């Protein structure tokens, strides 16, 4: 299904009609935290230190929640990676007084850092609690600042930040594809967490493309979405653990 070659400026928005989404296979997730560290490294997410972490101010854009079930000796623990769900009906978008957060044409819930004035209404509105606030100026003691990713802002105090599905990688792939006159392939965009995950529990792709891997997995009978009943229409689909697809 080859599409016509077009320079990026003339690329029509509705031709894309993409909805970026992620599928998280809970049967594969081992809670190893590789995604957590990969995200910190890719997105210049600051480390807050022990004191602030104890106060609940840590800034992880993706976290692994661990749930205990049962009592000893019949106890189980389950892992669930939680990140911004990029909701289709995001509760965080209408509450921002300065419109720093909005929905992009490709389905991302975006945060424009330099517009944010730090009211934290969005953080309060988010039912998944995935938005992190920079309570203090982030500190990168030299030469740790040499590692910072130039494709991502370094946020300062007073700004809310959260997972962006590595929009810098999406943007880069789309630009390169347009420059080469080809389409973006399924699987070409890999956010840092998806790329690093050793058991391949994370799959990223276009949920509006029925042929994409993410789309196919999202139709699994194991699929569910978090807090679905709230009507947020998340773009992250979880696959229940403990069962086969067969």
């Amino acid at each position, binding site marked *: 299904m080859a599409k016509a070659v077009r320079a990026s400026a003339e690329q029509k928005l509705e031709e894309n009609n993409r909805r970026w989404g992620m599928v998280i296979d809970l049967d594969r997730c081992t809670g190893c935290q590789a995604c957590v560290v990969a995200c910190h490294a890719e997105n210049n997410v600051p480390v807050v230190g*022990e004191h602030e972490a104890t106060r609940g101010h840590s800034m992880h854009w993706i976290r692994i929640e661990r749930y205990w079930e049962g009592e000893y000796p019949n106890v189980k623990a389950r892992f669930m990676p939680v990140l911004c769900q990029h909701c289709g009906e995001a509760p965080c978008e209408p509450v921002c007084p300065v419109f720093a957060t909005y929905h992009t044409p490709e389905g991302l819930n975006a945060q424009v850092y330099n517009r944010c004035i730090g009211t934290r209404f969005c953080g309060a509105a988010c039912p998944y609690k995935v938005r992190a606030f920079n309570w203090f100026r982030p500190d990168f003691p030299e030469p740790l600042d040499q*590692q910072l990713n130039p494709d991502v802002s370094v946020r300062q105090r007073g700004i809310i930040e959260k997972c962006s599905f590595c929009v810098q990688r999406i943007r880069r792939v789309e630009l390169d594809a347009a420059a080469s006159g080809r389409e973006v392939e399924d699987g070409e965009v890999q956010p840092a967490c998806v790329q690093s995950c050793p058991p391949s529990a994370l799959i990223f792709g276009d949920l509006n493309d029925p042929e994409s891997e993410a789309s196919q997995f999202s139709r699994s009978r194991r699929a569910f979405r978090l807090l679905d009943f709230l009507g947020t229409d998340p773009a992250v689909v979880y696959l229940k653990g403990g069962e086969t697809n067969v």
Partner: protein
Amino acid sequence: MVGKEISRRTFFKVAAGAAAASGLSPQVRRIALEPFVRPPEEELPGRATWFASTCRQCPAGCGIIVRVINGRARKIEGNPNHPLNRGKLCARGQSGLQVLYNPDRLHNAVRQSGGRGSRIFSPIPWDEALNELSATLQSLRDPQALAVLAGQPSDHLYTILASFLEGVGAPPAVIFDLHSALDGRADYASMSSRWFGERQLPIYDLAHAQVVFSFGANLLETWMSPVAQSAAYGQMRQGSLGGRGVFVQFEPRLSATGASADEWIPIPPGSEGIIALALGRIIVEENLGRAGKHNGHAHLYRNVSVADAAQASGFSVEELRRLAHLFAEADRPLAIPGGQLTGHTNSAQAMDAVMALNVIMRRLGRSGGVFMPQPVPAERFTSPAPTSNLDEVLDLVERMRSGDVEIFMFHGANPIYELPAWVGFKEALEEVPLVISFNPFVDETAVQADLILPDHTYLEGWGYQVVSPSIDRPVVSGQQPVTQPLHDTRSTVDILLSLANRLGGTVARDLPWNDEVGFLEESSAQLHDNSISIYDARTPAGFWSLWRQHGGWWSKREIKREPEAVGMPKEAMTVPAATFQGDEATYPFHLMPYSSLTLSDGRGANQPWLQETPDPMTTARWNTWIEINPESARSLAVRDNDMVNVTSAFGSLQAAVVVYPGIRPDTVAIPIGQGHSDYGRFAAMRGANVMDLLTPSPEDQNGKFTFGATRVRIEKIGQMKPLARLEDLDGEGRESIR
């Protein structure tokens, strides 16, 4: 959509002007221009160049590619072509840039001018340092008085070091690091030697196994090759057509690996072997499974009483039978003896008992079973660095204590921190006149050195690593600098080669290379023209170039080798009961020190990303804690975040309580990794070092590292210390994310 009514352009014009005037600028980082004298040919400004190398955060040897922009390394990813990890990378691998760019690295060679332990360092020029080292070596009356300890050396360093020491007539290096010890690498090599006649680590084909019984192997966290194992686990679960593998974890404490298991069997510490024997007995007795007749193996289990095993383990005979059926009736069962098991006094017999299960079910060389690595077809790469037993370490300590060691050098090891305090490494060092460290950081052992000649960190260095445990084909992982060395550090291999040159004689002849790169290029040439190589080149120089681009060498196709059970026991197997130090009345709890997923054996403590990454099971960070069963916690009248004194027959420490549902009531667990006194601002003065609690046992003197054999008692102090947990504890025992 307010933006459409108000013209955005006007709004922002005003805003920009006002912002500039008020001096408020919403950016923390400024862009700087960096012109070149001569531009690097392969680079586009603003675009990255990717360099292939090897991760060295643990002994596994995963391939990495590093994104370098303008000479600065920005991101590490797994090398998608590398057969071991195929583009994936674990948390510690991702954190590697904080080793390279760590603010507490040494910037040059230093002398601890204020005396050992003073932490007053003066930089010395490299020439002076090397002259001094060379002169001291030459003036040694007896070359046996030179002792070297290396921790997880890369294979190329090991080869050079071994030749050097042999050439000068010194005893071979002691190779010890706590991570490898917790993996049980030395025990594994011995077991392999017993069963299969070679000291190579066996390969478990986890991806194609149908039922996996893991006895204390935290294979999804830090054990052996976690990235490859996790990838295989993912496949075992959801990758194979027609079914999802079953995973059963036998351990006293539910680890993160156990959390991913379908069943957790909370066995008493040290009972792994007894249970494995009982399972084997049931399989043979009831002739279970479709693997063939078990008559030939009956003798192995002649002395096993299932009833006794049931009693000793606290499980019913029915339960043991159920497990035996589950294992034997699978088409592709697999039993894995793990690292925790090697910390007990009966580890050798226990490992044998677990491996025997694979043998009687005929899993050797079969899909989903046990394989041996195919050797790399070149002489330089056939013998990976061995791991020493504890008795070799104790030997070294004894020699130091009696004044037989005049020069002690160490690389990549931090024995004062990593070894139990009872070993007395620090005290022994006091008897050594000259102590030299090659570590890039001032850690607990380096702080007792006279001279520190810092090596490059792994992203700035060269090398190769024969991957062990291997994967489905022979692999040599290559390491190359991704950036210029940040500081005035020097490769230890280059130092050794230069010393060899100066010393002359045998050692100069044995080590003729001018520098490390020359040695590596020559080594790579041994694989040039090999028919199974993934790439081909017309000249050795071209081959060396492709070696670096690919990140090493590997075979283009799978080569799996069937192990031969040459060492099948002829007699009945027995596993003695594990013994523990400290009487049960005074010290009612088994202590389980475990390798931290993030900090590993303590080496990750200087990386803030790893410190802030939550432990998967407790979500706690930045400190040490003790995990106690809820019932035991109630009987001790302790709750979450209470500080307690943890005392063994040897020592004591304080830690905050985590009430942990997934642990036996008679066992407590403490993660390894904190309690540093040095090692940089992120590591120092934080938490406690659980190795200080370990009580020596008679088996330790025989080379067993019985890190699981200590008993402790717990006492409430009456203070609280809120741990930096990701989850919130609202007092009801419920958890919610803050």
